């Protein structure tokens, strides 16, 4: 570095030091960081949802409930098309203008039957920031790099022929450390597995309850170590993500639709209404903190922001409760009755959610009660959970992908 002046070196070193701080937060899986729905590093989001803040809208080649992944200046999304949804798509768009950068298509190798409300592109893909891991209801699991080069492929129904659900699979995988964790749970050949990120080989595979289950894994930290929590009708199973070794169990009737929310070493579980537990580092059964039978999530998963828990019930009412005690702080009715999408939030005092009729809404959480401060009717059915980036909200329907920006 002899040719660099002292000043240049200082600038370069400063830039290198600052680089991590300036890195835009990525949204790498269903419900973002740790599958929690909340990203504290996102400080700016539009609070006005209107044509004015709609940055772009692009048509999609197929249906899907999956959420967009946001990595750097790119948006990644899955879809399925064709008379029996046998054509699988992975799409990459430019975040700036929605231009299609690349698309890869695959033939489904597993069963594509599903309830008509859902579809084959129901699970949200996952990423480690370097690769996309796209999972479909057909149990096709496809890894591509960010430029669309296929890295590996698995046909999990080819490998495990009774692993399917005639209503459709929907659990979204999650990257934890160097393992991709997926729940392939159903009435017949039910399992969860950890896949090697580079080769797709099984790192571990365990039997799971033989029962349909649409919940997704969440990650939390116990004593600083990552733990994956798998939810099912039998309760919660905590695992070491790299090995699949069991760490703890929480028996009970957990929901098979809304997933848990993690916050540090606490887990908020849709079970018996809503149940909060603290995970013990010694592998003992989790410590019960509180249970609120009257705070029952509908399809949407609960969301933890700071010291509050937010739950949307089947009537379209959102309730805010204390994370410490479970006691209700307020509740208010959202626009529209049915919500399949889960709420998401950054650190700007608002949460965002879209009802099934496609009304995307911003809820101000700063007052004594929550208030829908802005909404926009997208004019299409929306069942997928929005994704957030610094300054932007992305949401998809079966037909389109939208970006709203501050």
């Amino acid at each position: 570095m002899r040719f660099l002046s002292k000043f240049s070196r200082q600038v370069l070193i400063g830039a290198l030091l600052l680089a991590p701080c300036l890195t835009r937060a990525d949204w790498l899986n269903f419900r973002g960081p740790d599958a929690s729905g909340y990203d504290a590093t996102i400080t700016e989001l539009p609070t006005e949802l209107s044509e004015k803040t709609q940055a772009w809208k692009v048509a999609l080649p197929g249906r899907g409930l999956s959420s967009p992944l946001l990595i750097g200046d790119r948006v990644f999304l899955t879809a399925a098309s064709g008379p029996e949804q046998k054509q699988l798509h992975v799409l990459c768009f430019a975040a700036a203008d929605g231009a299609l950068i690349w698309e890869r298509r695959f033939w489904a190798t597993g069963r594509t039957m599903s309830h008509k409300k859902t579809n084959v592109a129901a699970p949200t893909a996952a990423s480690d920031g370097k690769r996309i891991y796209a999972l479909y209801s057909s149990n096709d699991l496809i890894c591509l790099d960010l430029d669309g080069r296929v890295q590996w492929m698995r046909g999990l129904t080819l490998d495990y022929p009774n692993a399917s659900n005639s209503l459709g699979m929907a659990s979204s995988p999650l990257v934890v450390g160097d393992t991709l964790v997926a729940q392939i749970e159903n009435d017949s050949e039910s399992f969860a597995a950890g896949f090697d990120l580079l080769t797709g080989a099984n790192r571990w595979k365990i039997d799971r309850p033989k029962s349909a289950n649409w919940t997704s894994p969440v990650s939390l930290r116990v004593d600083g170590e990552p733990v994956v929590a798998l939810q099912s009708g039998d309760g919660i199973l905590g695992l070491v993500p790299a090995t699949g070794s069991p760490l703890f169990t929480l028996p009970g009737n957990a929901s098979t639709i809304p997933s848990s929310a993690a916050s540090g070493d606490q887990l908020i579980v849709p079970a018996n209404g809503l149940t909060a537990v603290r995970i013990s580092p010694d592998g003992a059964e989790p410590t019960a903190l509180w249970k609120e039978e009257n705070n029952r999530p509908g399809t949407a998963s609960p969301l933890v922001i700071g010291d509050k828990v937010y739950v949307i019930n089947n009537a379209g009412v959102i309730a805010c409760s204390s994370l410490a005690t479970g006691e209700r702080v307020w509740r208010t009715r959202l626009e529209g009755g049915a919500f399949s999408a889960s709420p998401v939030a950054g650190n700007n005092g608002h949460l965002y959610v879209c009802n099934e009729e496609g009304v995307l809404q911003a809820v101000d959480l700063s007052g004594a009660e929550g208030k829908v401060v802005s909404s926009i009717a997208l004019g299409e059915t929306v069942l997928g959970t929005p994704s957030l980036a610094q300054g932007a909200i992305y949401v998809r329907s079966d037909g389109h992908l939208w970006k709203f920006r501050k």
Partner: protein
Amino acid sequence: MNLSSISTSLFVGILSLSSVASAEPWSAPIAHILAVGPEGSGNPDAAEAGQTLTALGSLALLPSLEAMAEANPLARNWLRSVVEAIVADAADSPGSLPIENIKAFLLDRKNDPLARHLAFDLYTLLGPDDAFTLIPGMIDDPSPPLRREAVALQIKEGNRLFAANDKGASVTTFKSALDAARDVDQIDEIAKTLRKGLSQTVDLQRQFGFLSHWNVIGPFDNTDQAGFAKVSPPEESIDLSASYSGKDDKMIAWQPYATSDDYGMVDLNQPYSPLKQVLGYAYTEYDAPAARRAELRLGCKNAWKIWLNGEYLFGRDEYHRGIRIDQYVLPIKLKKGRNTILVKVCQNEQEQDWTVEWQFQLRICDESGSALLATDRPPTPEAAPAPRRPAAPAN
């Protein structure tokens, strides 16, 4: 290892190297992709091979399409990703791609059906504006997605003729479309127009190749779903004159059953009345004109098992998650002459009104979905009740 075996190994090695050296540049990478197997085996080599093939560009496009004929479903997807990456990389110079070779590949019916449909997509995207003119000639194409394109055109033409009140020509067009159609949604659409709009008779059961005549026996016990795994007498041997001790020790015997349902539904609630925690068997014989590969295609929302010629094929213990035509596709080998088919259908303990069904539908067809009718197929039973059908396919 003695000297002789070392010499032999060296010789084989030299031969292999020389064969790779003389092979085309795409040969080895395609071989790596074709070698992908279960549980992720071969993925690292396939990834490297995919990059090699993509870097070869248009040179590797046709070989990749051609290799799909010998590819398993995963390898076929690997090859598709190569083809699409090559085409994407050539976006700025589409003239560098072998358009006419792609067209020739598309028109050669010996090639892989899905690969040909991909070639059709590419030709539509890249070729001259004559792709549309190729579609009518695909009406009897062995590739289901290509045939679908041609059937869609005929449906459109039939509707145009119907709207123009040319009913005779409309009937002719729709009947031609029905003969050609293999996809359930298209067959449904055509049959509906022929029946309701044009007052024509349509034998949907025969069109699909559903098996309509059975012998059934039940109920056996399926308390706590334990009967699914338990071997009952019909699984050991078929004797249609035999009686057995069924659920609650009641004696049960085989009885004939024929379905007139458009979609071949065999409804065990009809002979036995709605029951819970029971199971039954259905047995039929199928006379094949020649030995051949075929597919058993089953729809069932109960737990089930199936045997062909006494050999267990597959089973599934899922209850009441949905049913549709061709829900499960089982590749089989029919033998010439008499083939036997035994289906076990289990009902569980659920009491909701959407868990009453205890039924299945089964057809035999080729890989394109074309019905394969038994030489001794009896006529479709008449006096059909009100049309009924399973839940519509997703989409």
